[in-house]
Every structure is written in C-alpha cells, then in structure tokens.
C-alpha cells in the first residue's frame, strides 16, 4: 500500500471520469437459491475513482450480487468484465487475483487469531524456508494500523477481544493493504460510532482519489448521498435503476427502494 494514504487534509475527490472502459461490468447476472431468484438479470458497472452505492431492502439481493463479484457465490448466468476483459471468478482466490477486495458485513474475521494473522489470512508472509513469518506480519500490521486507527494497540490479542470499531479497522486494513483496485464494502459503518464512521468516509474519499472503484452497500440514505457518485437500487432481486446522485434527492432514492420506480427526472441509464 502507498505511503500517502490518509495523510492529506480532506478535499473532496474529483468526479470520476466515465468516458473510458469501466473497471467492472456485471452483465445480466442471475442467481437462484432453490427456486428463489435472489439476483434476477442485474447489470451494474463501476468506473475507476467512483463510488457506486447499492441500495435496497433487506433481501433485495445486494449482498448476493456482490458476493458473485467477490467469488463467494457463483452466478447461474451472466458475465463479469474487469477492465473490459471477461473475467472468470469462481472462488474468493480468483477475485483476489483481479485485485477485488471485500469488507463483509460480518467482517469475516477469525476471532481466535490476532490482527496480523487475520490481515494476512490466505496471504501470509513467509520466511525464505516457507514458514509463516509472524514478526514481519506484526510489523506490517503495526504500520498500517498506525495510519488507519492510531488507537489500535492490541496487536497480540485475538480479535475476539477487540471492540467493534477495532475489528472493523482490521477488516478494512485487510482490504486496502493488498493494493485493491476494486473494493466492495458491505455496510462498513453499521457497527461504528460517529468518529469511526467519519474516518471511514475520509478513507473512501482517499481511496477514490487513488483511482479505486468502490461498491458501497449501505442502508443510510444520507450517507449514500454524501459518499457515492451513483446509486444502483435493487428490489426483489431485480435492478430498479441506476442514477447519478447529483440528479436525485433522498426522497427519489427512497421512492426507488420502496416503490421500485425510477424518478422521471433522472432518466435511467442505458448500459452497454
């Protein structure tokens, strides 16, 4: 990860340039669980330096859709393009190869292991002989934690013993440490206090500036209006529409979530 992370005073990141090839395109994704269509022909996309909010009720299919991208689920049908090239993502390892990192709502931490072991889980640093190098991993963890969450001290404790905010910062550190190009955040601030939420918002701005594309699942409409460039709304497994945040109001978004209707003012985007 780069050294300039999180150090500058916050200025809003520039608006994303959507003229080039999208970073991610998920085309016509279908996924059913035993007859229930969890994701039903959804198409969404994401450009570099852009934050796209994914909205919808519980069970609308947001998390399922995103898990197709992160490799946790395999779609029944549909295609994924990364930088315009067809990508095959069959498991989380594949997703990591495409520099897709995910912060899950559940955080997906092994509670019995310490912060460093979690941060490097599946990608351990090893000594020349191939043994796990705990000291090197602890040193790296200290470095990134010093920037992400300066109050983080409990490096040796199992993450079970950490507070919600501290656990969250371990999950975030894991996602940003490995030079992610595409970041998926599933309710990253759900368990956080005001101060910590602000830190995450600043982090998102910083990552945007570095050209990452971010999918953000969030229930807080206000937060989505603040942090996102566009929003894709889902209902009953289908895409209601994708709108530019600049074109809509909070009420418009609420209308889309509840009624499943795209406001007339914001013409639905045509997706290639």
């Amino acid at each position: 990860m780069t050294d300039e992370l999180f150090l500058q005073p916050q200025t809003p990141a520039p608006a994303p340039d959507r003229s080039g090839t999208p970073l991610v395109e998920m085309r016509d994704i279908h996924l059913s669980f035993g007859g229930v269509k969890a994701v039903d022909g959804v198409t969404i996309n994401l450009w570099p330096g852009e934050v796209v909010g994914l909205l919808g009720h519980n069970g609308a299919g947001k998390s399922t859709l995103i898990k197709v991208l992160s490799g946790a689920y395999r779609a029944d049908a549909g295609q994924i393009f990364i930088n315009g090239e067809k990508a095959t993502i069959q498991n989380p390892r594949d997703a990591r190869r495409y520099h897709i990192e995910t912060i899950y709502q559940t955080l997906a931490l092994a509670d019995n292991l310490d912060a460093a072991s979690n941060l490097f889980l599946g990608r351990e640093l090893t000594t020349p002989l191939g043994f796990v190098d705990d000291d090197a991993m602890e040193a790296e963890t200290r470095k990134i934690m010093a920037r992400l969450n300066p109050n983080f001290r409990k490096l040796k404790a199992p993450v079970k013993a950490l507070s919600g905010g501290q656990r969250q910062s371990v999950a975030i550190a894991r996602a940003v440490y490995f030079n992610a190009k595409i970041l998926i955040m599933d309710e990253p601030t759900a368990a956080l206090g005001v101060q910590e939420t602000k830190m995450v918002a600043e982090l998102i701005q910083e990552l945007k500036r570095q050209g990452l594309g971010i999918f953000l699942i969030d229930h807080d409409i206000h937060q989505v209006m603040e942090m996102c460039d566009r929003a894709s709304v889902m209902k009953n497994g289908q895409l209601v529409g994708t709108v530019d945040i600049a074109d809509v109001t909070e009420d418009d978004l609420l209308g889309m979530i509840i009624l499943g209707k795209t406001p007339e003012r914001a013409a639905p985007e045509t997706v290639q």
Partner: protein
Amino acid sequence: MVQDAPAETVRAPAKDGSGGFMRAVRALDIDLRLLGMIGALLIIWLVFDLVTGGRFLTPRNLFNLSVQTASVAVMATGMVFVIVTRHIDLSVGSLLGFLGMIMGTLQLHYLPGLVGHGHWSIWIVTILAGVGAGALIGAAQGYVIGYLAVPAFIVTLGGLLVWRGAAWWVTGGQTVAPLDPTFSLLGGGAAGTLGATWSWALAAAAATGGLLLQYISRRRKAAHGFPVKPLWAEIAMSFIIVGVIVGLTAVMVAYPVPEAAARRILAARGEAIPEGPINMAHGIAIPVVILLVVALVMTVIARRTRFGRYVFATGGNPDAAELSGINTRLLTVKIFALMGALTAIAAVIASARLGAVGNDLGTLDELRVIAAAVIGGTALSGGIGTIYGAVLGALIMQSLQSGMAMVGVDAPLQSIVVGLVLVLAVLVDILYRRRTGA
C-alpha cells in the same frame, strides 16, 4: 499467538497487582493453562506417591508411564487439528488395530518371502507402508467429510466399525506374532531405549536447540523493534528449559536394566559380556523419542506453517477462512490424512510394545485420544488447542489410570474416576476461559 497465549503479556504491566507470582508468570510469558495442567499432573503424582507409599514416583514407574503414554499422545497431537476444525475422529482406535494388523502381516508373512527372513529393511518398509496406508485411509475419510459434506461424527463412527471389522479380516482373527526384532525396539522394552550415553546426548541437543531458539526469537523481536522480555525473565526461562530437560533425562537414566535382561541385550547386540555386575541404564525409551519428535513437528506445523494457520483460522471461523481464499475442503482432507499417518505411527508403538498384534489392539483408544486432547485444553467448539496440551492431557490420563491400578482400585471405579475427571477438566477450562475472556 495462534495458540491463545495470554494477551499483552509484557506490554501491559499487571494491573490487578495480584502478587509477585502472577507478575513473574506474565514476564516469563508462560501460558497459565499450561501451568494449571502441570500443577494438576504434579498433584496427581504426589497423591499417588503418598497412597502407594513412595512406589509411584520412582524412575521405574515414571519410565513405564512415559512408554504407556506415547501411543495415545502421538494420536492426540493429530486429534488437536481435527477438533480445532470442529470435527471429530472416532475411528482412530479401530484404524490403529487395522494398521497394526497390516504392518504385522506385512513384516511376518510377506516381506520375509521377498527380501529374506530378518532382513534389515523389513521394519522400514513396514512402517512406510503403514504410514502410507494410514494417510490414504485418513484422506478417504477426510474426502467424504470435506467434499461430500457428511458429518465427521458419522463418517468416523462408520470408520470405527469398518476398520475394526477389516482388522479381523486381515488374519481371520488370528494374533500376529512375533514381530521383527528391530521393529519391536520401537515399543520401548528394556532393549528399546537410548541407554545412558545417547539419552544425555539427546538431552544436550534438546537443551542447545531450546536455548538457540530462545536467542533467535529474542534477536528477531529486537530487530523489528518489538518489546522483548526483561533479561532476567529470559535467563530464568533458560534455566527452566535446561532444568526440565536434565531432570527428566536423569530420572530415565536412573532406572537400571536388570542384570539378566542386560546380559540378554548385550548378547543380542553381539557385544562382550563383562564378568562382574553390569551397569546398564534404561534411559529415554524409543517410543518417547518418537513422541517428542512428533510433538515438535506438529508444534512447528501448528505455529509456523500456512497449513497450521489455516487449521486454526478455519476452526475459529469457517466462513471467514473460505472467504479468505482458503480451500477448506482440501484442508479437511489433509487434516484427516495427517491423523491417519499419526495413527499408523501410534500403531507401530502400540504393537511393538506388546510384541504382537491382536484383534483388540487399540480398542477404545479413540476415547482416550479425544479425552487427552480435550483435557489438554482443545475446545470442541473449535479454534483453540495446543499440541503440548494434548501430550500433557495424555500423560494426565495415563497417570490416573496407572496410579489407580497401582493402588488396586477396581476397574469399574477406575472408569468412573477417569470419566469424572474428564468432565471436571473441561468445566475448569470453560470457567477459566469465561473469566479471562480468552
């Protein structure tokens, strides 16, 4: 760190001021649970020694105890991985019997025909075949558990019946004996020991290795700028390491081989038999050496390899492990294959100790192995367990059993006591965890 060492040992000085002892424990960075187990073991030993009028804590009895513990302890180290990943293996006792039978017939009925009777290679080929078969059978059970998603309890309960039946089938129920002479040494009879000289050589090597590791670890921590233990704590630790190694070796060396047996051993080796009294010591038994090597290797696997890290991560949170790109199905196959290979090693020790393979070899061992792992602090809820704990657990179990046999407690009462101790040990562990939040 993986193995739930007390958190923030040196960095946070003792806040509760609970006396010099706790401060010392913290500074030394010793696992409290380890101390508890050693304490329990010492109490058991002292009580039996008092009750038997000093017959329990003798070099002879401690030597026998070490040999009797080896087979179950070897399997218990593997059971730690199995239980840490929230599985169970009920088949190890039967599998031990089956593998013992295979190795018995191989060295008695097949290999002599191929390479000649008493050939030097027989015991090596036998063990390689046994370990290979054990790993394969374990992998097969692991495949059904990991890939076909049948619960481990069911698969290995089936295995318990299947392998016991298969063991009978190998010879139609006949006992296989006598075993290859070299193979028999691995069971730790009077001849199957290191003797005084080699025992001390091993002790010296172990002490040197221990001190070297301690030094390297400290230097690495300092190089990374991490806090290190105070120097007095390191030196105290060094003394403890060396003291324990020297003490245990001295006990084993203090058990002399009886005159007649010593003459037989020397004759078998083709050495000159001296005229006067023979001064021959048992020293460390070969099965104990095997156990020490297994425990060392398993500890390195648990703490210093990716495989070990994934075992604990999967035990702590299977979903997180999967999402981190760990192939948890293949991991399950590997864990059960390892368990099978260790069962084969245990089968070597158990059959060599008896000098014969009977149909009932290993009966009920699955329960002893699981109990050893659990008494040693392995949590059935997954994610927590240590190799040294399992070995100590096996030693505690065996101490209880031998002690009660020595005192003359009836067999049914022995079972009752062991059963109660098992539950009590787990209860204490749960209460301890709840209090410390570990």
